[in-house]
Structure formats: structure tokens, C-alpha cells
């Protein structure tokens, strides 16, 4: 009897100890560094969270093919490509960063979406992991530079051209070889198109992108410098100043005059671009990658591309709207940083960059790319725009929270007709202030970064 009791007690204690051990092991965090961490850069297993399909249709397939080639070159390495969705790109990475597990290589949009995780210690600088001679071949690295270090690698250039359908312009009695050059010309063209029963501007804003894009392509034309743009987020300027918020009035004007597609509030950008390609609207703002896809479909002769019409006279009005867009970086918790850096470097080889262009039609972000490969006149025009000396994508400079809650969401309400331009202005100003209060350290670091 006593033995039975004793054995039961032992069993109970053993099971309790097992549970405690399980808890302790679960709470003890990652089990040390991978022995391959500082070893052979061509041996190991990497997880790559990839995004690019919305900007450049076909990019996911290209990356998977590139990985297969790399694995064939280096049989000791295995790379798992995990495509990411646009809506969850930032959220999924933040979840991974909080758990300090997940990808070895991940991607975020350039500048603030890259630098914010850098400030939070969630990513590792590429400077030091990749030779300076290689980094110097990447254009616009200033977008992802902080504290003198480059934090992320560009894969392709992303210009946002103003595109028009020549056939529909001709149908409305407009000069199909020239797009509007000023705001007044844009409005006049819209009026003629609308009178001809043609949707003037095709756009989708269910994802909120159109509002923030409009700020980037139109809203910054009143400013003279990037520092002036940063000042509004760094608390040194007021968003209510028409110099910053005037674009909302213009957006409301397009809405009120019925120049935007009627379903703008209920379709995504990509759906609107599909409609544009089907000839359902006369003008749009698109990406190089989407224009490249249309050119591949044989729509090139029907398309006109140019810089956004000049709206204002600020110095930034002379800038073109191109960016590195999505940028790849190595996570701070990755135990295989050398392997990740070797793969990123390999992606930028001349052979891969040319292959990227011929496969996707989008321009690689590499100064070694030979532009003689571009033969289509529409794409030649886009490459000229993308390689102009002054480039800026203003959305990259907005803190992600302000971008999502303010520039995107508030403008979405404006486009849906549920708020006025003046109310939208005060709402965005309030959201900027709320971010400064809710994220004091991010705000402090942003201000330091903005001060240079």
C-alpha cells in the first residue's frame, strides 16, 4: 500500500517536473546561435519573406527561379521563399520581430518602413556584411541610409508615371500624343473626357494607396526640399499649412467634379489598373512594373507616359517620383547573416539583373544595368524618367502609422465623400500629433534623422 502511494507520488512529481521543464524550456528563448552563423556562407537554410507582385507582376516567379539557380550553384544552401501580401506586409514583419523569429531576409518599402525597424533594432545593417564596392552600385541608397550605414538592398526601380490611353484621348477630341502638363490642363482634359462618356481617371482606393500616392505625386510639389517634407513629421511644421495639405483640396475637386472612377472606394489599386488596361478609363497613375506588363500584352502603342502634370512651383515639383520601392534586409535575429548577405549580393550580379529586366520588364536597381537592353519606346521613356538626377517618393518619409492612419485612411474617407478637405486636414494633423505622443522614441529618432 505504502509502495503504491509512493509510486503514485513519484509519478505525480515527475509529471509536475516535466510540465515545469517544458515551461522553462519554452521561456528560455532561442536555443543559442546556429553553428553555421559565422561559417561557410554557402551552407545553411534561409527563409526569405518576399514581396513585389503588386509593383512588378511576375516578380515572385522570378525570385523562385533565381533561388533555384542559386541552390544549383551552391548545393549546401536552401532558401525558402515565402510570398507576402500587401495588406499584412508590415504587420507580419512586426509580429515576427516581436517574437524574434521568422525570416532571415525580409522586405519593406524603402525609407521609413525600413528605417523604423532599423531604429527598433530589428534589422542588421548591410554595411559591413556586403562590400562597399557592391553597395556603391545600388542607386538611391540614401533612402535606406541611417547613421552612415545602408540597411537594405533595392531590387528594382519603381517609378510612378502618369499614364494615358491614346485611343480614348483621341475619341474625346484631345491630342493623344501629349498628356496634360498643368493642373488646369488636367482638369480641362478630364472635362472633355467626361463629356465624351469616358471615365477620366481610373483609380482604386479600397487599399488606401491612391490618397498617399496623390500626396507623393501632387502634394509635395509645393515644397522646396526633402527636409521641408520631413519637418511636418518632426514637429517643426504644421500639416494645416496649405503648403502641406493643399493636395487634399485638389483631391476633393477631382472627386466633386466626377473625374475619378465611380468605384474608386470599393476596388483595390490593382483592380483599377486592370480596368485601365481594358480601356475603361483614360488616365491613371501606375507603376513601371504594371506599364511593363501592359507593354508585354501589346498595349504599348496605345499608351502615353510622362511625369505628373506640374501643379505648383516648389523645387520638389522638378523631382520625379521614383524610389527603390521594396527593399530587402537581414533580420537582427537571423543566425545566418553571412549566408543572407551572400545571396543578396548574388542577386545583383549583372546576369541576374539583366534576367530580371527581360523576365519582368521592370528596371533593376543597379548602376551596372545596361539600358541598351530596353528597346520599347514607352519603356525607354520610363527609364529616362527613373534615372533623372532628382528622385523622391514622399510617402517613404511618412512614419508608417501616419501613412496608414492619415495619408491613406483619411484620404480614403475624403474620396468616399464622408469628409471634407478641411476636416481631412485637421484629422491628418491630429494623427501626426498622436503618433508623436504614442511613439515618443520613434518620434525622437525621426527628428534626429530629419536633422541629418
Amino acid at each position, binding site marked *: 500500500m505504502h509502495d503504491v502511494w509512493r509510486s503514485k*507520488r513519484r509519478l505525480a512529481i515527475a509529471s509536475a517536473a516535466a510540465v515545469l521543464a517544458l515551461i522553462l524550456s519554452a521561456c528560455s528563448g532561442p536555443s543559442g546561435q546556429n553553428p553555421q552563423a559565422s561559417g561557410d556562407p554557402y551552407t545553411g537554410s534561409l527563409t526569405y519573406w518576399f514581396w513585389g507582385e503588386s509593383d512588378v507582376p511576375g516578380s515572385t516567379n522570378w525570385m523562385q527561379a533565381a533561388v533555384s539557380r542559386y541552390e544549383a550553384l551552391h548545393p549546401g544552401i536552401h532558401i525558402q521563399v515565402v510570398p507576402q501580401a500587401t495588406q499584412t506586409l508590415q504587420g507580419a514583419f512586426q509580429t515576427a520581430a516581436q517574437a524574434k523569429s521568422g525570416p532571415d531576409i525580409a522586405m519593406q518599402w524603402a525609407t521609413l518602413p525600413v528605417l523604423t525597424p532599423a531604429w527598433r533594432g530589428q534589422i542588421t545593417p548591410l554595411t559591413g556584411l556586403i562590400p562597399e564596392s557592391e553597395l556603391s552600385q545600388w542607386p538611391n541608397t540614401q533612402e535606406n541610409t541611417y547613421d552612415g550605414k545602408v540597411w537594405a538592398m533595392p531590387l528594382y526601380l519603381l517609378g510612378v508615371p502618369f499614364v494615358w490611353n491614346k485611343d480614348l484621348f483621341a475619341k474625346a477630341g484631345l491630342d493623344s500624343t501629349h498628356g496634360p502638363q498643368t493642373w488646369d490642363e488636367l482638369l480641362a482634359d478630364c472635362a472633355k473626357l467626361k463629356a465624351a462618356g469616358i471615365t477620366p481617371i481610373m483609380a482604386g482606393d479600397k487599399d488606401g494607396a491612391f490618397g498617399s500616392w496623390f500626396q507623393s505625386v501632387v502634394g509635395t510639389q509645393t515644397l522646396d526640399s526633402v527636409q521641408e517634407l520631413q519637418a511636418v513629421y518632426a514637429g517643426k511644421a504644421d500639416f494645416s499649412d496649405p503648403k502641406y495639405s493643399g493636395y487634399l483640396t485638389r483631391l476633393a475637386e477631382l472627386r466633386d467634379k466626377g473625374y475619378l472612377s465611380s468605384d474608386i472606394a470599393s476596388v483595390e489599386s490593382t483592380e483599377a489598373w486592370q480596368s485601365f488596361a481594358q480601356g475603361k478609363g483614360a488616365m491613371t497613375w501606375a507603376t513601371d512594373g504594371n506599364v511593363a506588363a501592359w507593354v508585354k500584352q501589346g498595349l504599348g502603342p496605345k499608351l502615353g507616359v510622362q511625369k505628373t502634370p506640374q501643379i505648383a512651383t516648389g523645387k520638389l515639383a522638378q523631382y520625379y517620383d521614383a524610389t527603390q520601392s521594396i527593399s530587402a534586409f537581414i533580420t537582427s535575429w537571423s543566425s545566418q547573416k553571412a549566408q543572407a548577405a551572400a545571396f543578396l549580393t548574388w542577386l545583383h550580379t549583372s546576369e541576374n539583373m539583366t534576367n530580371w529586366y527581360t523576365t519582368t520588364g521592370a528596371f533593376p536597381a543597379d548602376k551596372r544595368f545596361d539600358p541598351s537592353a530596353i528597346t520599347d519606346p514607352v519603356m525607354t521613356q520610363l527609364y529616362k524618367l527613373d534615372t533623372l538626377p532628382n528622385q523622391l517618393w514622399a510617402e517613404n518619409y511618412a512614419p508608417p502609422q501616419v501613412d496608414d492612419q492619415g495619408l491613406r485612411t483619411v484620404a480614403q474617407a475624403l474620396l468616399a465623400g464622408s469628409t471634407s478637405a478641411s476636416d481631412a486636414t485637421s484629422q491628418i494633423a491630429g494623427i501626426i500629433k498622436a503618433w508623436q505622443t504614442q511613439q515618443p522614441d520613434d518620434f525622437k529618432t525621426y527628428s534626429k534623422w530629419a536633422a541629418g
Partner: protein
Amino acid sequence: MGSPIHTTVDRRIATGSPRVKVRRLRGGTWPYAFIFPMIVCLGLVFAYPLITVVRNSVYTSSMGETTFSGLENYRSLLQDPVFMTSLFNSLKLLVVVPVVTVVAVLIALMLYEGTKGWRAYRITVFVPYIIPATAIGISFSYLLQENGIVNIALRRISLGFLAQDWIGNSNIVLFSVGGLLVWTQLGFGVIVFTASLLSLPKELSEAAAIDGATRWQTNRLVVLPQIRGTVEFFLVLQAIQVIAWTFPYVYILTHGGPGNASSVMDLYVWRYAFQYSSPGLSSAAAVVLLLLAGVLIAIYTRLRMKQGER
């Protein structure tokens, strides 16, 4: 006739000897040791996350460092118009609960009364409940767009004046979300109420019929009172569902837009936790959500207790 050992033990227990006291204590302790692992597991699954959320709600986190901030996060919530919009939207969507309940009860009564092919109807009504929320959200986003299938159909049958931007109009979008919730939850209600009705004794209804009661009178005065407990349970369950489980539908159908016109509490919690990296604010909002659900559970418990007293 007991064995000598039992007799000795019984005597010792009767006399209260110290050795028996120790054994009694041991005998009373070791069962607890056996259930200890389960208590720990339950604690990890339920208590730990709950305590962590409540704890995080009084801390501010930035750049990986947390600072105690008292009720600051709650104050920020109250000052945040997006939170207030999300809260009110969640409360407005509670209108869905009585609608689902009434319609589900009516359909269940029709099926209970022996409609031909009632089993097929029941399965048909139940199907939306088992379709994944993501599939429903995507399908309805195509159906309800300005130029979506619903509006195209309306225009084709000369009812174009009824066509609306169901998910792009701030004044309508919440009705669209509510309608979607009714559609998905109805099947569950019908299944629950049909099962409850089928378990009722037939004698009472038959007696009422013999006494000359109409079908309406029988249902209202005899049948429905008998499933009152089920209806109350369903009401509370649905209310909790609407308050705390609408995220997948709203996220996929509208992303909370246009603007924040269809933002709800659980979407707000998710955004602050994962998009804006503000676990403090997110946790504070989650605590508010938890309190709302707690109030509903308390109401239900009280109703059940009253019913027990009756």
C-alpha cells in the same frame, strides 16, 4: 467483515493518531499533484495571456523598452476618435444579434413543422456558417463593389436606382457588414433552434391544438417558452461573436474603410498590436473588449440563475 489492516486504519482514524493525520494529508495532497500539470496548462493557455494583456495595458512600449504608464493608454484610447468610432461600430453591429435570432427562430419553426425536405433546407442554410471567413469576405467584396455583381444584376432588371456602392459608401458600409454577419450566422442559429425544438415533447403542442389553439398561438405560448433557455444562450453567444469575432469579415471585405467607417474593436486591437507596434494601446483596447464580453457573459449568467430560481 473488514481485513485486519482496514480495521487498524479505521481505529487509527477514529483515535486521530499523528501517523494517520500525516497519511490523510498526503492522501489529500497527491490528487492535487496529479491535476497540477493540467492547472498549469490551463493557466498558460488562459490566465497567462489574460494577465499579460492587462499588464501590458498599463505599460507604454517603444523601441523595445517598456515603461509603466498607469492609465495613460486608456486615456489615449478615449481621446482617439478611431477607437471611439470602432467601439460604436461594434456596438451598432449588435443590431445583427436580434435579427439573426428572430429569423433563425422563424426558419427553425418552419422546419420543425415538417416542411417537405426540411433536412435539405437546414443544410442549405447552414452552409454559409462553415465556409471560411476569408472566402466569404473575398466573394462578397466582388459582389458588393460599385460595379460588382449585385449592382450589375440590379441594373439589368431595371432596378438600377437601388444600386449602391455597398462597401465604398461610408453611410452604407456598416449595413453591408451587418448583412454579411446575418448571412453567415443564420445557419448556426437554425441548427441550434431546430435541435432544441426537436427535443421538445410533442404532447404539449398536441394538447394545445386539441384545445383549439392556432398555430401562431401554439408556437408563441407553448413552443417558444420551452426553448427560451436556448434563445438566451444563442443571444449572448452571438453578441460575443459580434463584439469580438468580426475581424476576418471586416478586414477582408472593407479593411475597416472607407476611412474608418467600418472599423471595429478587434480590427483596432490588431492594427495597434501588429501594424503600429503599440502593444500598450492594443492591450488597453483588448481589455475594453474583454470587459464588454464580460458584461454580456454576466447578463447571461444572471438570466440563467433567474431561470433556475423560477
